[in-house]
């Protein structure tokens, strides 16, 4: 019965007769969470924009020495994400866990000041920031799903993600404004970034509510979520299929780095314009996130996710295809941004109703972790394919993989569950 919500939301109990109000945008909690994300992203992207300058020119360090611990970080972050998600469910303190995540990242900004030229210390600070990010996203998304009626989840996530990317756009501008004002003082950027992040935590504490009105969850006397119950999530068929689908979809993404590299190579783009590729993609994401979320509520989330991955496949095909030129470049970026807009929030909107409210944070954390780990695997595989057969073959293989993954995803998430009981690997 959960699955029917996924593919055909209109066949749901028809919104309990509630009129479709186009202007009743999203709940206050979603706006609050969106604002927190917006402010936090300003803070994070401020640091992103100046960190290379700081490391290479400010400290004169060799940044290539930083890649070493990448795998360890990803693993630790994945583990913490799941543990944090479970804690948030068990103690029903999603806001607290998210808040700790935001606060950790805020403190990390000050850590950069204290780390000095010590490469291990800088690595540790970056790791703390990353852990904070890993910790907060699942409880935040769980709060969004719990603050929103199921039929409006797409819109809620769309608005949230759009606000998030607005912050990401403002961050670099803020950083450059600070640098212009104070000269080459990167410290001032880090302190400002910390202050911005701290403001986000204040907004979270004051405006985000742990228990939004009408939360369809258990009463205060219900037993706490146990580890066994959380593990039971892995035995429930809808959740298992969802996790499997999320991981498969993660396998279809080769990563921004490769996409932009291929684009730059085939268009013979001046290397200086390289950063603009990411800007173009984010712009498309920002503009399309909310409309595609609304669309997902209307026509179903699965079709929009499928459309998003089709856009990803088309992106890969364009990268592999014979057509060149600026219009193709622009189209590629728009398609790539569409992929993000149609999948990032919408997938969680799709996932939310499949997960019992008691275990929602754990479930979302598992989905996100599955995707992150699968993505790690796919980027390694793509690198190996490139090494063995060259970039053109590699991207064609990736396009094929998107097609294959899409078919399996649709089978996993759209069909009546009983047909597949025995086919899903455990």
């Amino acid at each position: 019965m959960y699955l029917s919500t996924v593919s055909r939301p209109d066949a749901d109990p028809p919104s309990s007769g509630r009129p479709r109000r186009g202007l009743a945008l999203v709940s206050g909690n979603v706006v609050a969470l969106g604002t927190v994300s917006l402010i936090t992203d300003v803070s994070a992207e401020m640091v992103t924009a100046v960190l290379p300058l700081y490391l290479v020119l400010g400290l004169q360090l060799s940044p290539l020495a930083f890649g070493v611990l990448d795998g360890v970080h990803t693993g630790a972050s994945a583990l913490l994400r799941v543990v944090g998600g479970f804690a948030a469910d068990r103690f029903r303190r999603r806001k607290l866990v998210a808040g700790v995540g935001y606060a950790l990242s805020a403190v990390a900004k000050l850590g950069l000041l204290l780390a000095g030229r010590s490469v291990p210390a800088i690595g540790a600070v970056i790791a703390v920031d990353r852990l904070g990010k890993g910790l907060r996203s699942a409880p935040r998304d769980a709060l969004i799903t719990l603050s929103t009626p199921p039929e409006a989840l797409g819109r809620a996530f769309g608005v949230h993600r759009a606000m998030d990317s607005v912050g990401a756009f403002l961050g670099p501008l803020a950083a450059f404004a600070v640098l212009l004002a104070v000269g080459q003082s990167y410290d001032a950027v880090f302190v400002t970034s910390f202050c911005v992040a701290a403001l986000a935590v204040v907004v979270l504490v004051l405006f985000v509510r742990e228990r939004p009105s009408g939360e369809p969850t258990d009463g205060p006397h219900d037993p706490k979520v146990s580890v066994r119950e959380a593990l039971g999530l892995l035995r429930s068929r809808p959740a298992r299929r969802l996790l499997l689908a999320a991981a498969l979809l993660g396998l279809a993404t080769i990563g921004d780095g490769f996409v932009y590299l291929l684009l730059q190579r085939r268009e013979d783009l001046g290397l200086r314009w390289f950063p603009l590729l990411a800007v173009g993609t984010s712009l498309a994401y920002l503009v399309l996130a909310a409309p595609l979320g609304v669309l997902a509520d209307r026509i179903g989330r699965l079709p929009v996710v499928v459309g998003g991955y089709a856009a990803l496949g088309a992106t890969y095909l364009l990268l592999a295809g014979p057509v060149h030129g600026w219009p193709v470049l622009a189209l590629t970026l728009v398609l790539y941004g569409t992929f993000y807009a149609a999948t990032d929030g919408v997938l969680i909107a799709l996932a939310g109703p499949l997960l019992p409210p008691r275990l929602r944070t754990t479930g979302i954390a598992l989905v996100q972790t599955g995707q992150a780990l699968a993505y790690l695997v796919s980027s390694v595989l793509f690198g190996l394919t490139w090494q063995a057969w060259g970039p053109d073959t590699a991207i064609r293989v990736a396009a094929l993989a998107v097609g294959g993954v899409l078919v399996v995803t649709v089978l996993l998430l759209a069909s009546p569950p009983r047909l597949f009981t025995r086919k899903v690997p455990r």
Partner: protein
Amino acid sequence: MTAMSTRTKLGVVAVSAVLLGTVAAGYAATAAQPDRTPPPAAGADQAVTLTSGPRLLAITDRHVSSVAAADPTGPRTVSGLECLRVYAAAGTGVCLKPETPWTYQVVVLDAALRPTRSVPVPGLPNRARVSSSGRMVSWTTFVGGDSYTTSGFSTRTGILDTATGATVMSLEEFAVTRDGRAYRSPDVNYWGVTFTADDNRFYATMSTNGKRYLVRGDVAARGVETVRENVECPSLSPDGTRIAFKEAIDADPAKGWRLSVLELATMRVTATAETASVDDQAAWLDAGTLAYTLRQSDGRPDVWTVPADGSGRPRLVLPGAESPSPLT
């Protein structure tokens, strides 16, 4: 918390914003550095030239400067030309020059320090070299940090032939032969070019798959081949028989680098007497002396020299300077 009205909450947010804004502005005000342009020496914009002579070229406080090789602690001539890296040979110089705080260009200089060509480059300055004839110019920049949460740094190394104007924007375009077999990989990065006397062949560092190789390259043939593992930032001796380089300790750059010299005929490596970790492409001041930059704990640079044959001791020659180059 529940008792607070929305209005009160907004008030608290506004007050927090003002307080935090004051903290940030206050810190910025104390941290703001006065324009660091005025160089320390006796008056700015003195005439530094790149003609051959017994002088050392270096960067002092982001400006091209020179000093008598025999008396390096003596008076330093500091030009008005702002560069983050500089190198010169046979009256041709290369300068990695800021356009804005976050964009840089490679500027080719004549003997009077006048720009003759410039190439905008992506990323942040790292290495610069000129061939001994002054014809070939090369540079390395760091590119990346696209995302705070990924350590996606990479390098771009380019080569410019000043005689023809032909430019290779990235050595990644070249074909790679690794251990005798054709090789390709998306994670190939190059840094630290050093040219041989024929103005075509060169040595450089290539990194792929977590390993760093000394490669021998050929500009005309557009290819490189690996020579040896764990050699970074090669610098060919004036007679072309030895390569000074930084050798990652236990082949792990996280443990730092030992400045060493590789004899090409025997492939024997000799560590120099410098035991501090050297993260620089050394310069040969003469047939037996290497110059390199070391940084103090706060990042301030100093130029040191050490004998290339493993004997002697390191010597501090240019306090507060970096990017040393002989003027040959």
